């Protein structure tokens, strides 16, 4: 199916709700005194977008809801600019949830409340619109615009703490790296356009499939495009901005960047590289082959190993928990890439599942960082000393759950996610990658346990301050911690969801 602009509006409800809410917030900001009402409005916007996304497609059934209303399931929107398919809906759900949690966190964050909240919530929603379109875009121009929308709003959000010099520095670094990498990326896109004569992924796919293209040309174009995508997913060597930006940004924004914009980078990358530049292998179940002789999986294999290794090694020596989690999130981008290089649906499914578990445990870890920072104003490891013994038992236990989950220890969600990734790698006999991955898991365990040791095994010295957990944040903490445990014990429906979401509309 291929819908024109006006017809497409019916299928853009999630994005339209977000945009409308954002505009409403900017307007209401002028008259409303109690700014947390704006946050509440933003929460309703996210919830609306979530429901509208579910309205496109029931997450746990095999039915397109809109089919009953419009007789239409998946296909092109806006004259072949974006696609609605299972894959896109999966990410829409994930982003709506990420935005919801971010805004909930922001409402309980002391940092955020000191600034212009109206702008802040509006920008988060605008950024979420960008994320939605990153997952749906099937046209190079649309993809670039969506990515830039996310980037521009993220720069502003990172620099939101106007009186904090670190925040400004972080935003500037982020902006410069982002500008350069997106310039390189659009140059690469111009090569692809030159090859295919079209910005359309489908035409691009037809060109690399049937046309006589020089492998090296395609390869160079891919490398250039990877600069932009690698920047979004914090893959080495485009990761340099991440530790500074993550450390300087307000904590909810850091959480949002590490979960939302990273997942969107993966979504865009998968859509470009799989249905865009590869073809489903004939016969065997769920395999893909790269086209035109441009062996990007080899390149990604190297990037993947470098990303996880560098992220983990750099995290070892960190004294600031936020920065440590920034490096850990780089390492996790590396783990997630393991599913990308194996060229089959099992790998992609593992990636999607991992992004869900990563969403839970990483947001959770940042939430605890925020709770501690709210009470004590500290983000350094020493500020966590004896956390469990000075009133912060619940956050400390929750943090232990999130960190052990990040480390991949059963029975927690992170283990199941890693299990599927490693299973996909071992199944395709990438033994070197598996070995590097396992070695990294071991390294990572050390620095996660270091935080846990500080919280539980060390006794407080008395100067750390008391950590209190209010009900607002406690609610979110349980909302993230309980699924982290439950998904480690029973995850069949969620893996079924991930499995079904690895289905692309190929036109």
């Amino acid at each position, binding site marked *: 199916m291929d819908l024109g602009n006006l017809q497409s509006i019916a299928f853009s409800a999630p994005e339209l709700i977000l945009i409308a809410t954002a505009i409403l917030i900017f307007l209401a900001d002028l008259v409303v005194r109690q700014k947390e009402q704006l946050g509440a409005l933003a929460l309703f916007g996210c919830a609306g977008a979530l429901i509208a996304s579910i309205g496109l497609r029931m997450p746990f059934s095999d039915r397109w809801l809109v089919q009953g209303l419009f007789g239409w399931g998946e296909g092109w929107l806006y004259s072949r600019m974006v696609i609605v398919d299972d894959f896109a809906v999966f990410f829409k759900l994930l982003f709506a949830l990420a935005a919801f949690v971010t805004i909930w966190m922001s409402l309980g964050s002391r940092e955020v409340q000191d600034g212009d909240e109206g702008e802040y919530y509006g920008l988060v929603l605008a950024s979420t619109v960008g994320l939605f379109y990153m997952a749906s875009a099937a046209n190079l121009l649309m993809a670039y615009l969506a990515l830039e929308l996310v980037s521009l709003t993220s720069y502003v959000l990172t620099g939101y703490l106007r009186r904090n010099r670190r925040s400004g520095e972080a935003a500037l670094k982020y902006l410069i790296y982002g500008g350069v990498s997106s310039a390189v990326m659009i140059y690469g896109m111009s090569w692809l356009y030159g090859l295919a004569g079209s910005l359309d992924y489908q035409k691009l796919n037809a060109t690399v499939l049937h046309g006589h293209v020089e492998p090296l040309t395609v390869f160079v174009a891919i490398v250039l495009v990877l600069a932009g995508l690698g920047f979004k997913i914090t893959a080495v060597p485009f990761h340099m901005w991440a530790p500074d930006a993550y450390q300087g940004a307000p904590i909810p924004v850091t959480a949002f960047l590490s979960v939302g914009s990273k997942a969107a980078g993966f979504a865009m990358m998968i859509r470009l590289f799989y249905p865009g530049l590869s073809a489903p292998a004939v016969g065997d179940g769920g395999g893909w082959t790269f086209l035109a002789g441009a062996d990007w999986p080899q390149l990604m294999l190297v990037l993947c190993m470098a990303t996880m290794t560098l992220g983990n090694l750099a995290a070892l020596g960190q004294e600031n928990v936020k920065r440590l989690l920034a490096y850990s999130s780089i390492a996790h981008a590396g783990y997630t890439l393991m599913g990308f290089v194996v060229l089959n649906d099992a790998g992609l499914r593992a990636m999607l599942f991992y992004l869900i578990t990563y969403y839970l445990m990483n947001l959770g870890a940042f939430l605890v960082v925020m709770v501690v920072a709210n009470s004590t104003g500290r983000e350094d490891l020493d500020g966590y000393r004896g956390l469990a013994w000075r009133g912060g038992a619940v956050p400390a236990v929750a943090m232990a759950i999130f960190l*052990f989950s990040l480390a991949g*220890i*059963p*029975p927690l969600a992170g*283990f199941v996610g890693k*299990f599927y990734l*490693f*299973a996909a790698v*071992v*199944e395709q006999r990438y033994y070197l990658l*598996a*070995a590097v991955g*396992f070695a990294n*898991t*071991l390294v990572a*365990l*050390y620095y996660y*346990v270091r935080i846990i*040791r500080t919280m*539980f*095994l*060390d006794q407080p010295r008395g100067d750390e301050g008391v950590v209190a957990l209010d009900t607002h944040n406690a609610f979110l903490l349980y909302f993230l911690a309980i699924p982290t445990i439950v998904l480690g014990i*029973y*995850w*069949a429906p969620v*893996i*079924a969801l991930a*499995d079904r979401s690895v289905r692309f509309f190929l036109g």
Partner: protein
Amino acid sequence: MDHVLTLMTFLPLLGAAIVLALPSQHHALIKQVALAATLPTLLLGVWLFVAFDRGTTDFQYVDKVPWIASYNIQYFVGVDGISITMVLLTALLCPLCVLASCGIDKGVKGYFALFLLLETGMLGVFVALDFFLFYVFWEVMLLPMYFLIGIWGGARREYAAIKFFLYTFAGSVLMLIAMLVLYFGSEPHTFDMTVLMQRTGVFDMRTQHLLWMALFVAFAIKIPVFPFHTWLPDAHVEAPTAISVILAGVLLKMGTYGILRINYGILPAATADLAFWALAVLGTFNIVYGALCALAQTDLKKLVAYSSISHMGYVMLGMAAFTPQGINGAVLQMFNHGTITAMLFLLVGVIYDRAHHRNIDGFGGLASVMPVYTGFTALAFFAAMGLPGLSAFISEVLVLLGAWQRYPGLTTVAASAIVLTAGYLLWTMQRMWLGPLNAQYAHLPEIDARELVTLVPLAVIVLVLGVYPHAVLDLINTSLLHLNEIVKAGAATGVALR
């Protein structure tokens, strides 16, 4: 009693949940609830001991339900002669350890909740028959152990806890790789151990050897085999008494149990090829090395820790012999070492609670102050030495008899090392309990009733198994002979049994 194993495994977890729900200032109540939570498992264990069918090689009391159907992962538990001894040992030691933990006064709620979680993890490892489930339980047991050593341990607890954690986790990672390779090598893919045991020939010998080595290292860290043993003295010494008992009594057995269940059962041909170097030679080395290290110790707890390394060597040597006596002796030794070393650690705890140090040379003539305590210590020491009439004598003799038939040279070395064992134990006895009384400790109180309750059941078992080993041998014999035949048949298809 269809779900007896599931009940046994998860009742402690239920207890942990109840403990967490109790108000944290009611220490006595928490301790009582924790004890009550371990008792049903013990009672079910006794029932299992009586009802277990000793004549079949099949897995009994099987519970099998699909868990994650899309990946063919099952919740699959059952016991055979090998695992039932370990289940019984765990069920027996846990209530005793709860009793021995009565002195804990810091973070009481957390301690007992973690302890009960640990019990679930340990029982789960021994009953799991799905490799994925086995792995999950194997790791579940790690987390509480880390905190139990790290929070309630001695002076160097943080170092000991992280070392234990990293060592074991490194092993787990190797196990995970091997598990995935086995899974994808079976058609249709499965984690079901009973199915994997029947499909032994799908890999070429080189892959089988690699898989075997990966699994062996994972388990060897737990046993612990030289050179993977260095976590043990640290962990055992720093852990609180009850946790040392669990570490030495149950956790070490997981290593040898894993080798018997997985390496022997799933990779019999590779077992036949590699057992000589990996099990017999390293096992004998363990015996001698552990004994020599024990001789050099000045800390009583460290001495007991090294004696564990030495005694686990007999298990490995017996397993590697592929004779009925050897393999029976090995599993009997696993059980006996569990009870004896538990006694030893409990006894160390008794003196440490009174004198607040464990320096062997810092005592003297304790026999005149604490005669009952000395009696129990003598019993435990003699049992550890393998004195006839006590349980370890039977198992060590069986091991040596079995091993002699295949490795006379190694067996000679192993048998001679008993002299070293006698040496360090008797010398310690002499320095601490005999000789002139150290006046500083002239008023040490005698062992009290609670401590006696923890020791007497173990002492009774040591005595009974010394004269009637068939109580355990009958349980294990059928399954072990069957396993032995599997390995021999595997050897026939692979390279010749060395």
